[in-house]
Protein backbone atom coordinates (compact mmCIF):
# COMPACT_ATOMS: atom_id res chain seq x y z
CA UNK A 1 0.00 0.00 0.00
CA UNK A 2 2.67 2.44 1.08
CA UNK A 3 4.92 1.45 -1.82
CA UNK A 4 2.20 2.39 -4.27
CA UNK A 5 1.77 5.76 -2.56
CA UNK A 6 5.35 6.74 -3.28
CA UNK A 7 5.00 6.08 -6.95
CA UNK A 8 1.63 7.82 -7.11
CA UNK A 9 2.68 10.91 -5.14
CA UNK A 10 5.17 12.43 -7.66
CA UNK A 11 2.76 11.67 -10.49
CA UNK A 12 -0.01 13.53 -8.66
CA UNK A 13 2.31 16.51 -8.13
CA UNK A 14 3.24 16.63 -11.81
CA UNK A 15 -0.37 16.34 -12.96
CA UNK A 16 -1.41 19.09 -10.53
CA UNK A 17 1.32 21.39 -11.88
CA UNK A 18 0.23 20.78 -15.47
CA UNK A 19 -3.38 21.51 -14.59
CA UNK A 20 -2.37 24.77 -12.86
CA UNK A 21 -0.27 25.87 -15.85
CA UNK A 22 -3.10 25.13 -18.29
CA UNK A 23 -5.60 26.92 -16.06
CA UNK A 24 -3.39 30.02 -15.86
CA UNK A 25 -2.64 29.97 -19.59
CA UNK A 26 -6.30 29.71 -20.50
CA UNK A 27 -7.35 33.00 -18.92
CA UNK A 28 -9.41 35.32 -21.04
CA UNK A 29 -8.27 38.51 -22.83
CA UNK A 30 -7.74 39.57 -26.40
CA UNK A 31 -4.87 38.53 -28.60
CA UNK A 32 -3.15 40.06 -31.62
CA UNK A 33 -1.34 38.03 -34.23
CA UNK A 34 1.48 39.69 -36.17
CA UNK A 35 3.18 37.82 -38.97
CA UNK A 36 5.53 38.82 -41.79
CA UNK A 37 8.90 40.43 -42.35
CA UNK A 38 11.85 39.10 -40.42
CA UNK A 39 13.41 42.56 -40.45
CA UNK A 40 10.51 44.14 -38.62
CA UNK A 41 10.32 41.32 -36.06
CA UNK A 42 12.81 42.77 -33.53
CA UNK A 43 10.95 46.07 -33.63
CA UNK A 44 7.44 44.67 -33.31
CA UNK A 45 8.65 42.27 -30.60
CA UNK A 46 9.88 45.21 -28.53
CA UNK A 47 6.63 47.08 -29.18
CA UNK A 48 4.60 43.99 -28.26
CA UNK A 49 6.53 43.51 -25.01
CA UNK A 50 6.10 47.14 -24.00
CA UNK A 51 2.43 47.17 -24.97
CA UNK A 52 1.72 43.98 -23.02
CA UNK A 53 3.35 45.54 -19.93
CA UNK A 54 0.72 48.28 -19.91
CA UNK A 55 -2.09 46.03 -21.20
CA UNK A 56 -1.73 42.78 -19.25
CA UNK A 57 -4.98 41.38 -20.68
CA UNK A 58 -3.68 41.56 -24.27
CA UNK A 59 -1.36 38.91 -25.68
CA UNK A 60 0.57 39.61 -28.87
CA UNK A 61 2.24 36.89 -30.93
CA UNK A 62 4.92 38.03 -33.37
CA UNK A 63 6.43 35.76 -36.00
CA UNK A 64 8.72 36.65 -38.87
CA UNK A 65 8.94 34.09 -41.67
CA UNK A 66 9.11 36.85 -44.30
CA UNK A 67 7.09 39.62 -45.89
CA UNK A 68 5.63 37.32 -48.54
CA UNK A 69 4.25 34.88 -45.99
CA UNK A 70 2.82 37.79 -44.02
CA UNK A 71 1.03 39.19 -47.03
CA UNK A 72 -0.32 35.73 -47.91
CA UNK A 73 -1.68 35.47 -44.38
CA UNK A 74 -3.30 38.89 -44.78
CA UNK A 75 -4.95 37.78 -48.03
CA UNK A 76 -6.24 34.60 -46.38
CA UNK A 77 -7.37 36.62 -43.37
CA UNK A 78 -5.38 34.47 -40.93
CA UNK A 79 -3.50 37.32 -39.27
CA UNK A 80 -4.46 40.56 -37.55
CA UNK A 81 -1.41 42.53 -38.65
CA UNK A 82 0.97 41.78 -41.50
CA UNK A 83 4.41 43.32 -41.07
CA UNK A 84 6.26 43.93 -44.31
CA UNK A 85 9.52 45.45 -45.46
CA UNK A 86 8.22 45.91 -49.00
CA UNK A 87 5.07 47.44 -50.41
CA UNK A 88 2.18 45.16 -51.27
CA UNK A 89 1.94 44.43 -55.02
CA UNK A 90 -1.15 45.33 -57.08
CA UNK A 91 -1.76 41.63 -57.86
CA UNK A 92 -1.77 40.92 -54.14
CA UNK A 93 -4.24 43.74 -53.48
CA UNK A 94 -6.51 42.25 -56.17
CA UNK A 95 -6.28 38.81 -54.57
CA UNK A 96 -7.07 40.28 -51.15
CA UNK A 97 -10.09 42.19 -52.42
CA UNK A 98 -11.38 39.05 -54.12
CA UNK A 99 -11.26 37.45 -50.65
CA UNK A 100 -13.08 40.37 -49.07
CA UNK A 101 -9.96 41.75 -47.41
CA UNK A 102 -9.05 45.41 -47.79
CA UNK A 103 -5.30 45.93 -47.19
CA UNK A 104 -4.73 49.09 -45.16
CA UNK A 105 -1.14 50.33 -45.15
CA UNK A 106 0.55 52.02 -42.19
CA UNK A 107 4.22 52.95 -42.28
CA UNK A 108 5.63 52.37 -38.79
CA UNK A 109 9.34 53.09 -39.32
CA UNK A 110 12.08 53.39 -41.93
CA UNK A 111 15.13 51.23 -42.33
CA UNK A 112 18.43 52.63 -43.65
CA UNK A 113 21.48 50.44 -44.01
CA UNK A 114 24.79 52.23 -43.57
CA UNK A 115 27.83 50.80 -45.30
CA UNK A 116 30.80 51.33 -43.00
CA UNK A 117 34.59 50.97 -43.29
CA UNK A 118 37.58 51.69 -41.05
CA UNK A 119 38.21 55.45 -40.58
CA UNK A 120 41.69 55.07 -42.10
CA UNK A 121 40.22 53.77 -45.38
CA UNK A 122 40.58 56.46 -48.10
CA UNK A 123 37.47 55.23 -49.93
CA UNK A 124 34.57 57.54 -49.11
CA UNK A 125 31.87 56.55 -51.59
CA UNK A 126 30.77 53.48 -53.54
CA UNK A 127 28.13 52.76 -56.14
CA UNK A 128 25.57 50.03 -55.61
CA UNK A 129 27.19 48.05 -58.45
CA UNK A 130 30.60 48.26 -56.75
CA UNK A 131 29.04 47.08 -53.47
CA UNK A 132 27.44 44.18 -55.32
CA UNK A 133 30.81 43.19 -56.83
CA UNK A 134 32.48 43.41 -53.41
CA UNK A 135 29.89 41.15 -51.80
CA UNK A 136 29.80 38.60 -54.62
CA UNK A 137 33.60 38.36 -54.47
CA UNK A 138 34.20 39.84 -57.92
CA UNK A 139 36.13 42.81 -56.48
CA UNK A 140 38.61 41.64 -53.83
CA UNK A 141 41.03 44.56 -53.57
CA UNK A 142 40.37 48.09 -52.35
CA UNK A 143 42.50 49.39 -55.25
CA UNK A 144 39.73 48.44 -57.69
CA UNK A 145 37.37 50.95 -56.05
CA UNK A 146 39.93 53.71 -55.55
CA UNK A 147 41.49 52.64 -52.26
CA UNK A 148 44.80 51.21 -51.08
CA UNK A 149 46.31 48.04 -52.51
CA UNK A 150 44.91 45.84 -49.74
CA UNK A 151 42.44 42.95 -49.80
CA UNK A 152 38.80 43.60 -48.97
CA UNK A 153 37.34 41.77 -45.98
CA UNK A 154 33.60 41.75 -46.69
CA UNK A 155 31.48 41.20 -43.59
CA UNK A 156 27.78 40.28 -43.62
CA UNK A 157 25.17 39.30 -41.08
CA UNK A 158 24.24 35.58 -41.08
CA UNK A 159 21.02 34.21 -42.55
CA UNK A 160 19.25 34.74 -39.22
CA UNK A 161 19.09 38.38 -40.11
CA UNK A 162 16.45 39.96 -42.31
CA UNK A 163 19.08 42.52 -43.18
CA UNK A 164 21.08 39.72 -44.81
CA UNK A 165 18.19 39.14 -47.21
CA UNK A 166 17.40 42.83 -47.77
CA UNK A 167 21.03 43.59 -48.58
CA UNK A 168 21.18 40.58 -50.86
CA UNK A 169 18.10 41.60 -52.82
CA UNK A 170 18.71 45.33 -52.99
CA UNK A 171 22.50 45.52 -53.18
CA UNK A 172 23.98 42.16 -54.18
CA UNK A 173 21.22 41.45 -56.72
CA UNK A 174 20.71 45.20 -57.38
CA UNK A 175 16.91 45.07 -57.29
CA UNK A 176 15.37 48.00 -59.18
CA UNK A 177 18.51 48.79 -61.17
CA UNK A 178 18.99 48.03 -64.87
CA UNK A 179 21.86 45.73 -63.85
CA UNK A 180 19.55 43.62 -61.64
CA UNK A 181 20.54 39.94 -61.59
CA UNK A 182 18.52 37.58 -59.41
CA UNK A 183 21.09 34.79 -59.65
CA UNK A 184 23.76 36.68 -57.69
CA UNK A 185 24.58 35.40 -54.19
CA UNK A 186 27.00 36.37 -51.45
CA UNK A 187 30.53 35.15 -52.26
CA UNK A 188 32.04 32.27 -50.30
CA UNK A 189 34.64 34.46 -48.63
CA UNK A 190 32.12 36.83 -47.06
CA UNK A 191 32.25 36.58 -43.26
CA UNK A 192 28.81 35.77 -41.81
CA UNK A 193 28.76 37.14 -38.27
CA UNK A 194 26.15 36.37 -35.62
CA UNK A 195 25.56 39.95 -34.51
CA UNK A 196 25.62 43.47 -35.94
CA UNK A 197 27.67 44.67 -32.96
CA UNK A 198 30.39 42.14 -33.74
CA UNK A 199 30.47 43.28 -37.36
CA UNK A 200 30.88 46.91 -36.32
CA UNK A 201 33.65 46.06 -33.86
CA UNK A 202 35.44 44.02 -36.54
CA UNK A 203 35.35 47.01 -38.90
CA UNK A 204 36.58 49.27 -36.09
CA UNK A 205 39.59 46.98 -35.63
CA UNK A 206 40.34 46.05 -39.24
CA UNK A 207 41.44 48.67 -41.83
CA UNK A 208 40.38 46.37 -44.70
CA UNK A 209 36.88 45.45 -43.54
CA UNK A 210 33.49 46.60 -44.84
CA UNK A 211 30.08 45.95 -43.26
CA UNK A 212 26.45 47.13 -43.49
CA UNK A 213 24.93 47.83 -40.07
CA UNK A 214 21.63 49.60 -39.51
CA UNK A 215 21.91 53.30 -38.83
CA UNK A 216 21.47 52.76 -35.10
CA UNK A 217 24.62 50.67 -34.89
CA UNK A 218 27.06 53.15 -36.46
CA UNK A 219 29.64 54.33 -33.90
CA UNK A 220 32.43 56.91 -33.87
CA UNK A 221 34.95 54.15 -34.56
CA UNK A 222 33.72 53.42 -38.08
CA UNK A 223 33.25 55.57 -41.19
CA UNK A 224 29.96 55.43 -43.10
CA UNK A 225 30.30 55.58 -46.88
CA UNK A 226 28.28 57.76 -49.23
CA UNK A 227 26.26 55.54 -51.56
CA UNK A 228 25.63 56.29 -55.24
CA UNK A 229 22.67 54.67 -56.96
CA UNK A 230 24.49 54.81 -60.31
CA UNK A 231 27.92 56.14 -61.31
CA UNK A 232 26.61 59.59 -62.27
CA UNK A 233 24.48 60.25 -59.21
CA UNK A 234 25.71 62.16 -56.17
CA UNK A 235 26.91 60.11 -53.21
CA UNK A 236 24.48 60.26 -50.28
CA UNK A 237 25.52 59.64 -46.69
CA UNK A 238 23.09 57.65 -44.54
CA UNK A 239 21.23 59.68 -41.95
CA UNK A 240 17.74 59.89 -40.53
CA UNK A 241 17.22 62.90 -42.85
CA UNK A 242 18.36 61.25 -46.10
CA UNK A 243 16.45 58.09 -45.23
CA UNK A 244 13.30 60.15 -44.63
CA UNK A 245 13.49 62.23 -47.82
CA UNK A 246 14.23 59.15 -49.92
CA UNK A 247 17.61 60.25 -51.31
CA UNK A 248 19.57 57.50 -49.56
CA UNK A 249 19.46 54.49 -51.91
CA UNK A 250 19.50 51.65 -49.38
CA UNK A 251 16.49 52.76 -47.34
CA UNK A 252 12.97 51.37 -47.27
CA UNK A 253 9.74 51.81 -45.35
CA UNK A 254 8.77 49.26 -42.71
CA UNK A 255 5.03 48.69 -42.96
CA UNK A 256 2.07 47.24 -41.14
CA UNK A 257 -0.93 46.02 -43.14
CA UNK A 258 -4.34 45.40 -41.61
CA UNK A 259 -7.72 44.37 -43.02
CA UNK A 260 -9.40 47.75 -43.35
CA UNK A 261 -8.69 50.55 -40.87
CA UNK A 262 -7.58 49.05 -37.56
CA UNK A 263 -10.11 49.03 -34.75
CA UNK A 264 -10.27 48.32 -31.01
CA UNK A 265 -7.19 46.74 -29.48
CA UNK A 266 -5.30 46.56 -32.80
CA UNK A 267 -5.78 50.31 -33.20
CA UNK A 268 -4.55 50.85 -29.62
CA UNK A 269 -1.44 48.84 -30.41
CA UNK A 270 -0.67 50.65 -33.68
CA UNK A 271 -1.35 54.01 -32.01
CA UNK A 272 1.23 53.04 -29.40
CA UNK A 273 3.75 52.12 -32.15
CA UNK A 274 3.26 55.51 -33.80
CA UNK A 275 3.37 57.44 -30.51
CA UNK A 276 6.56 59.26 -29.53
CA UNK A 277 7.17 56.55 -26.94
CA UNK A 278 6.86 53.85 -29.59
CA UNK A 279 9.03 55.75 -32.05
CA UNK A 280 11.75 56.03 -29.38
CA UNK A 281 11.90 52.24 -29.42
CA UNK A 282 12.49 52.43 -33.18
CA UNK A 283 15.81 54.21 -32.57
CA UNK A 284 16.70 51.76 -29.78
CA UNK A 285 16.20 48.80 -32.11
CA UNK A 286 18.29 50.53 -34.76
CA UNK A 287 15.81 51.77 -37.36
CA UNK A 288 14.81 55.24 -38.50
CA UNK A 289 11.71 56.74 -36.84
CA UNK A 290 8.99 58.37 -38.91
CA UNK A 291 9.92 61.95 -37.94
Amino acid sequence: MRRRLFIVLPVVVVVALIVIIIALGGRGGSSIKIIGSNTVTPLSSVWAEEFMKTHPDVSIAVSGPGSGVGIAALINDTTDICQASRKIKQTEIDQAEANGVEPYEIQVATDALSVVVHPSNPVSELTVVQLSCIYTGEITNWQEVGGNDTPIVAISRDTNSGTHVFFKEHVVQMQGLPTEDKSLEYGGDVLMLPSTEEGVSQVAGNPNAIFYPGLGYVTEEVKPLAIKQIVDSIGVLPSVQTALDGTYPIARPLLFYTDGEPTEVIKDFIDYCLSSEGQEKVIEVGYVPLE
Partner: protein
Amino acid sequence: MLGKTSPITVEPVETLRRRWRLGEKLIESWIFLAGILTIVILLGIIALLLKEGLPAFWYTPPWEFLFGTKWYPVSEPPTFGITSFFVATLWVTLVATAISVPIGVACAAYLAEVAPAKVRETVKPIIEILAGIPSVVMGFIGLMLLSPLVQSVFDLNTGLSGLTAGIMLSLMSLPIIISVSEDALRAVPDDFREASYALGATKWETIRHVCIPGAISGITAAVMLGVGRAIGETMTVLMVAGGALAVPVSPTDPMMPVTAAIASGIGNAVRGGLQYQALFAIGLILFILTLAVNLTADRVLERQKRKFAR
Protein backbone atom coordinates in the same frame (compact mmCIF):
# COMPACT_ATOMS: atom_id res chain seq x y z
CA MET B 1 22.39 8.03 8.05
CA LEU B 2 18.85 7.06 8.99
CA GLY B 3 19.73 3.42 8.87
CA LYS B 4 22.47 3.50 11.52
CA THR B 5 21.17 2.69 14.97
CA SER B 6 23.64 3.60 17.63
CA PRO B 7 23.61 1.55 20.83
CA ILE B 8 22.71 4.55 23.00
CA THR B 9 19.46 5.29 21.13
CA VAL B 10 16.41 5.76 23.29
CA GLU B 11 13.82 5.43 20.54
CA PRO B 12 12.26 2.05 20.04
CA VAL B 13 13.85 0.13 17.20
CA GLU B 14 10.48 -0.36 15.50
CA THR B 15 9.91 3.41 15.00
CA LEU B 16 13.39 3.86 13.56
CA ARG B 17 12.91 1.01 11.19
CA ARG B 18 9.64 2.44 9.93
CA ARG B 19 11.19 5.88 9.44
CA TRP B 20 14.09 4.28 7.61
CA ARG B 21 11.75 2.47 5.29
CA LEU B 22 9.82 5.70 4.66
CA GLY B 23 12.92 7.68 3.76
CA GLU B 24 14.34 4.93 1.65
CA LYS B 25 11.18 4.50 -0.40
CA LEU B 26 10.93 8.22 -0.97
CA ILE B 27 14.49 8.50 -2.19
CA GLU B 28 14.17 5.31 -4.19
CA SER B 29 11.13 6.54 -6.08
CA TRP B 30 12.75 9.89 -6.87
CA ILE B 31 15.91 8.23 -8.13
CA PHE B 32 13.78 5.91 -10.22
CA LEU B 33 11.96 8.89 -11.74
CA ALA B 34 15.19 10.72 -12.41
CA GLY B 35 16.65 7.68 -14.15
CA ILE B 36 13.58 7.19 -16.31
CA LEU B 37 13.50 10.91 -17.11
CA THR B 38 17.00 10.89 -18.61
CA ILE B 39 16.13 7.98 -20.86
CA VAL B 40 12.84 9.59 -21.90
CA ILE B 41 14.59 12.87 -22.71
CA LEU B 42 17.30 11.13 -24.73
CA LEU B 43 14.77 9.11 -26.72
CA GLY B 44 12.70 12.27 -27.18
CA ILE B 45 15.68 14.13 -28.62
CA ILE B 46 16.47 11.32 -31.03
CA ALA B 47 12.84 11.09 -32.12
CA LEU B 48 12.64 14.86 -32.60
CA LEU B 49 15.84 14.97 -34.67
CA LEU B 50 14.59 12.15 -36.87
CA LYS B 51 11.10 13.60 -37.25
CA GLU B 52 12.24 17.13 -38.11
CA GLY B 53 15.47 16.28 -39.90
CA LEU B 54 14.69 13.35 -42.18
CA PRO B 55 12.21 15.23 -44.44
CA ALA B 56 15.14 17.45 -45.51
CA PHE B 57 16.44 14.51 -47.53
CA TRP B 58 13.27 14.44 -49.62
CA TYR B 59 14.07 17.92 -50.88
CA THR B 60 17.84 17.46 -51.14
CA PRO B 61 19.03 13.87 -51.68
CA PRO B 62 21.46 12.80 -48.90
CA TRP B 63 24.34 12.63 -51.36
CA GLU B 64 23.87 16.24 -52.52
CA PHE B 65 23.17 17.38 -48.97
CA LEU B 66 26.40 15.91 -47.63
CA PHE B 67 28.67 16.74 -50.54
CA GLY B 68 27.16 19.96 -51.88
CA THR B 69 29.23 23.08 -51.30
CA LYS B 70 26.49 25.70 -51.70
CA TRP B 71 24.45 26.79 -48.68
CA TYR B 72 21.85 29.41 -49.62
CA PRO B 73 18.96 28.72 -47.23
CA VAL B 74 17.15 32.02 -47.77
CA SER B 75 17.34 32.12 -51.57
CA GLU B 76 14.60 31.16 -54.00
CA PRO B 77 14.86 28.22 -54.44
CA PRO B 78 17.09 27.38 -51.45
CA THR B 79 20.21 25.24 -51.87
CA PHE B 80 21.49 23.02 -49.07
CA GLY B 81 25.02 21.61 -49.21
CA ILE B 82 26.99 21.15 -46.02
CA THR B 83 30.48 20.06 -47.12
CA SER B 84 32.07 23.38 -46.17
CA PHE B 85 30.63 23.14 -42.66
CA PHE B 86 32.10 19.68 -42.12
CA VAL B 87 35.47 20.64 -43.59
CA ALA B 88 35.45 23.66 -41.26
CA THR B 89 34.68 21.46 -38.26
CA LEU B 90 37.49 19.15 -39.35
CA TRP B 91 40.02 22.00 -39.52
CA VAL B 92 38.98 23.50 -36.21
CA THR B 93 39.05 20.12 -34.49
CA LEU B 94 42.43 19.28 -36.03
CA VAL B 95 43.97 22.52 -34.76
CA ALA B 96 42.41 22.03 -31.33
CA THR B 97 43.66 18.43 -31.13
CA ALA B 98 47.15 19.26 -32.41
CA ILE B 99 47.56 21.83 -29.64
CA SER B 100 45.73 20.23 -26.74
CA VAL B 101 46.97 16.64 -27.01
CA PRO B 102 50.74 17.19 -26.60
CA ILE B 103 50.23 19.79 -23.87
CA GLY B 104 47.48 17.80 -22.17
CA VAL B 105 49.35 14.48 -22.11
CA ALA B 106 52.59 16.13 -20.99
CA CYS B 107 50.74 17.94 -18.23
CA ALA B 108 49.04 14.71 -17.15
CA ALA B 109 52.40 12.87 -17.13
CA TYR B 110 53.88 15.62 -14.97
CA LEU B 111 50.97 15.55 -12.54
CA ALA B 112 50.81 11.77 -12.31
CA GLU B 113 54.50 10.84 -12.38
CA VAL B 114 56.68 13.80 -11.45
CA ALA B 115 54.82 16.36 -9.37
CA PRO B 116 54.87 16.05 -5.59
CA ALA B 117 51.47 15.39 -4.02
CA LYS B 118 51.18 18.99 -2.86
CA VAL B 119 51.65 20.44 -6.35
CA ARG B 120 49.17 17.95 -7.79
CA GLU B 121 46.57 18.84 -5.19
CA THR B 122 46.93 22.54 -6.06
CA VAL B 123 47.13 22.24 -9.83
CA LYS B 124 44.24 19.80 -10.39
CA PRO B 125 41.51 22.04 -8.97
CA ILE B 126 42.88 24.96 -11.01
CA ILE B 127 42.63 22.88 -14.18
CA GLU B 128 39.06 22.01 -13.25
CA ILE B 129 38.27 25.72 -12.93
CA LEU B 130 39.48 26.12 -16.52
CA ALA B 131 36.83 23.56 -17.52
CA GLY B 132 34.19 25.67 -15.82
CA ILE B 133 34.72 28.84 -17.86
CA PRO B 134 31.56 29.45 -19.93
CA SER B 135 32.08 29.07 -23.66
CA VAL B 136 30.73 32.55 -24.40
CA VAL B 137 33.49 33.96 -22.20
CA MET B 138 36.03 31.91 -24.14
CA GLY B 139 34.52 33.31 -27.34
CA PHE B 140 34.86 36.82 -26.00
CA ILE B 141 38.49 36.26 -25.04
CA GLY B 142 39.10 34.88 -28.53
CA LEU B 143 37.42 37.86 -30.14
CA MET B 144 39.14 40.53 -28.08
CA LEU B 145 42.59 39.10 -27.33
CA LEU B 146 43.42 36.17 -29.57
CA SER B 147 42.03 37.21 -32.95
CA PRO B 148 44.09 40.45 -33.26
CA LEU B 149 47.16 38.43 -32.22
CA VAL B 150 46.50 35.67 -34.77
CA GLN B 151 45.88 38.30 -37.44
CA SER B 152 49.22 40.04 -36.89
CA VAL B 153 51.32 36.92 -36.27
CA PHE B 154 50.10 35.10 -39.39
CA ASP B 155 49.63 38.31 -41.41
CA LEU B 156 45.99 37.54 -42.24
CA ASN B 157 43.21 39.73 -43.60
CA THR B 158 41.09 38.97 -40.58
CA GLY B 159 41.77 37.41 -37.20
CA LEU B 160 38.46 35.57 -37.32
CA SER B 161 39.61 32.18 -38.59
CA GLY B 162 39.49 28.46 -37.97
CA LEU B 163 42.91 28.75 -36.35
CA THR B 164 41.65 31.23 -33.74
CA ALA B 165 38.65 29.02 -33.03
CA GLY B 166 40.88 25.93 -32.82
CA ILE B 167 43.21 27.56 -30.29
CA MET B 168 40.27 28.59 -28.11
CA LEU B 169 38.78 25.09 -28.37
CA SER B 170 42.12 23.53 -27.39
CA LEU B 171 41.96 25.54 -24.16
CA MET B 172 38.48 24.16 -23.57
CA SER B 173 39.35 20.51 -24.19
CA LEU B 174 42.62 20.64 -22.22
CA PRO B 175 41.00 20.09 -18.79
CA ILE B 176 39.22 16.95 -20.02
CA ILE B 177 42.35 15.53 -21.62
CA ILE B 178 44.53 16.28 -18.59
CA SER B 179 42.19 14.90 -16.00
CA VAL B 180 41.26 11.68 -17.84
CA SER B 181 44.88 10.98 -18.92
CA GLU B 182 46.11 11.60 -15.40
CA ASP B 183 43.64 9.06 -14.03
CA ALA B 184 44.78 6.59 -16.68
CA LEU B 185 48.47 7.11 -15.83
CA ARG B 186 47.80 6.70 -12.14
CA ALA B 187 45.97 3.45 -12.84
CA VAL B 188 49.20 1.91 -14.20
CA PRO B 189 50.34 -0.41 -11.37
CA ASP B 190 53.46 0.60 -9.45
CA ASP B 191 54.98 -2.84 -10.16
CA PHE B 192 55.54 -1.65 -13.75
CA ARG B 193 57.47 1.43 -12.66
CA GLU B 194 59.50 -0.49 -10.08
CA ALA B 195 60.39 -3.12 -12.64
CA SER B 196 61.47 -0.38 -15.03
CA TYR B 197 63.65 1.34 -12.41
CA ALA B 198 65.10 -2.04 -11.44
CA LEU B 199 66.25 -2.44 -15.02
CA GLY B 200 68.12 0.86 -14.73
CA ALA B 201 65.70 3.07 -16.65
CA THR B 202 65.59 6.78 -15.85
CA LYS B 203 62.41 8.57 -14.88
CA TRP B 204 61.93 9.90 -18.43
CA GLU B 205 62.50 6.45 -19.93
CA THR B 206 60.00 5.00 -17.48
CA ILE B 207 57.36 7.56 -18.37
CA ARG B 208 58.06 7.32 -22.09
CA HIS B 209 58.33 3.53 -22.44
CA VAL B 210 56.33 2.15 -19.52
CA CYS B 211 53.74 4.54 -18.10
CA ILE B 212 52.40 6.12 -21.28
CA PRO B 213 52.23 2.85 -23.26
CA GLY B 214 50.58 1.24 -20.24
CA ALA B 215 47.95 3.96 -20.08
CA ILE B 216 47.61 4.39 -23.83
CA SER B 217 44.00 3.27 -24.06
CA GLY B 218 43.00 5.69 -21.29
CA ILE B 219 44.93 8.48 -22.98
CA THR B 220 43.23 7.64 -26.28
CA ALA B 221 39.87 7.89 -24.56
CA ALA B 222 40.90 11.25 -23.07
CA VAL B 223 41.85 12.52 -26.51
CA MET B 224 38.54 11.33 -27.97
CA LEU B 225 36.56 13.03 -25.22
CA GLY B 226 38.51 16.20 -25.93
CA VAL B 227 37.78 15.86 -29.64
CA GLY B 228 34.10 15.32 -28.89
CA ARG B 229 34.10 18.55 -26.88
CA ALA B 230 35.76 20.40 -29.75
CA ILE B 231 33.28 19.08 -32.34
CA GLY B 232 30.23 19.95 -30.30
CA GLU B 233 31.28 23.39 -29.04
CA THR B 234 29.10 26.12 -30.53
CA MET B 235 29.29 29.56 -28.98
CA THR B 236 33.04 29.99 -29.25
CA VAL B 237 33.25 28.93 -32.90
CA LEU B 238 30.20 31.01 -33.78
CA MET B 239 31.96 34.06 -32.37
CA VAL B 240 35.53 33.62 -33.62
CA ALA B 241 35.60 31.26 -36.61
CA GLY B 242 34.52 33.97 -39.08
CA GLY B 243 31.57 32.25 -40.72
CA ALA B 244 32.59 32.27 -44.37
CA LEU B 245 30.60 29.83 -46.51
CA ALA B 246 33.36 28.72 -48.91
CA VAL B 247 35.03 25.36 -48.35
CA PRO B 248 38.10 26.34 -46.27
CA VAL B 249 41.40 25.22 -47.79
CA SER B 250 43.62 26.30 -44.90
CA PRO B 251 43.02 26.62 -41.15
CA THR B 252 43.74 30.35 -41.38
CA ASP B 253 40.62 30.91 -43.55
CA PRO B 254 37.46 32.24 -41.98
CA MET B 255 35.03 29.32 -41.84
CA MET B 256 31.70 28.17 -40.47
CA PRO B 257 31.78 24.90 -38.50
CA VAL B 258 28.66 22.72 -38.31
CA THR B 259 27.51 23.90 -34.89
CA ALA B 260 27.87 27.55 -35.85
CA ALA B 261 25.87 26.92 -39.03
CA ILE B 262 22.98 25.49 -37.01
CA ALA B 263 23.07 28.28 -34.43
CA SER B 264 23.26 31.04 -37.01
CA GLY B 265 20.36 29.71 -39.07
CA ILE B 266 17.78 28.42 -36.64
CA GLY B 267 16.47 31.80 -35.48
CA ASN B 268 15.33 32.66 -38.97
CA ALA B 269 14.01 29.25 -39.99
CA VAL B 270 10.26 28.87 -40.32
CA ARG B 271 8.99 25.99 -38.19
CA GLY B 272 8.57 23.00 -40.49
CA GLY B 273 10.08 24.90 -43.44
CA LEU B 274 12.87 23.63 -45.67
CA GLN B 275 15.64 25.50 -43.85
CA TYR B 276 14.31 24.29 -40.49
CA GLN B 277 14.39 20.68 -41.71
CA ALA B 278 17.85 21.09 -43.24
CA LEU B 279 19.21 22.47 -39.95
CA PHE B 280 17.69 19.56 -38.04
CA ALA B 281 19.24 17.18 -40.57
CA ILE B 282 22.65 18.75 -39.86
CA GLY B 283 21.91 18.36 -36.15
CA LEU B 284 21.09 14.69 -36.70
CA ILE B 285 24.40 14.08 -38.49
CA LEU B 286 26.32 15.99 -35.82
CA PHE B 287 24.57 13.98 -33.10
CA ILE B 288 25.54 10.69 -34.76
CA LEU B 289 29.13 11.92 -35.11
CA THR B 290 29.61 12.98 -31.46
CA LEU B 291 27.75 9.88 -30.27
CA ALA B 292 30.20 7.71 -32.25
CA VAL B 293 33.20 9.55 -30.80
CA ASN B 294 31.90 9.30 -27.24
CA LEU B 295 30.91 5.63 -27.56
CA THR B 296 34.35 4.75 -28.91
CA ALA B 297 35.96 6.66 -26.05
CA ASP B 298 33.80 4.72 -23.60
CA ARG B 299 34.76 1.37 -25.14
CA VAL B 300 38.46 2.23 -25.04
CA LEU B 301 38.21 3.39 -21.43
CA GLU B 302 36.44 0.16 -20.51
CA ARG B 303 39.28 -1.84 -22.07
CA GLN B 304 41.81 0.11 -20.01
CA LYS B 305 39.92 -0.69 -16.83
CA ARG B 306 39.78 -4.40 -17.66
CA LYS B 307 43.49 -4.47 -18.47
CA PHE B 308 44.52 -3.61 -14.92
CA ALA B 309 41.63 -5.22 -13.10
CA ARG B 310 43.13 -7.93 -10.98
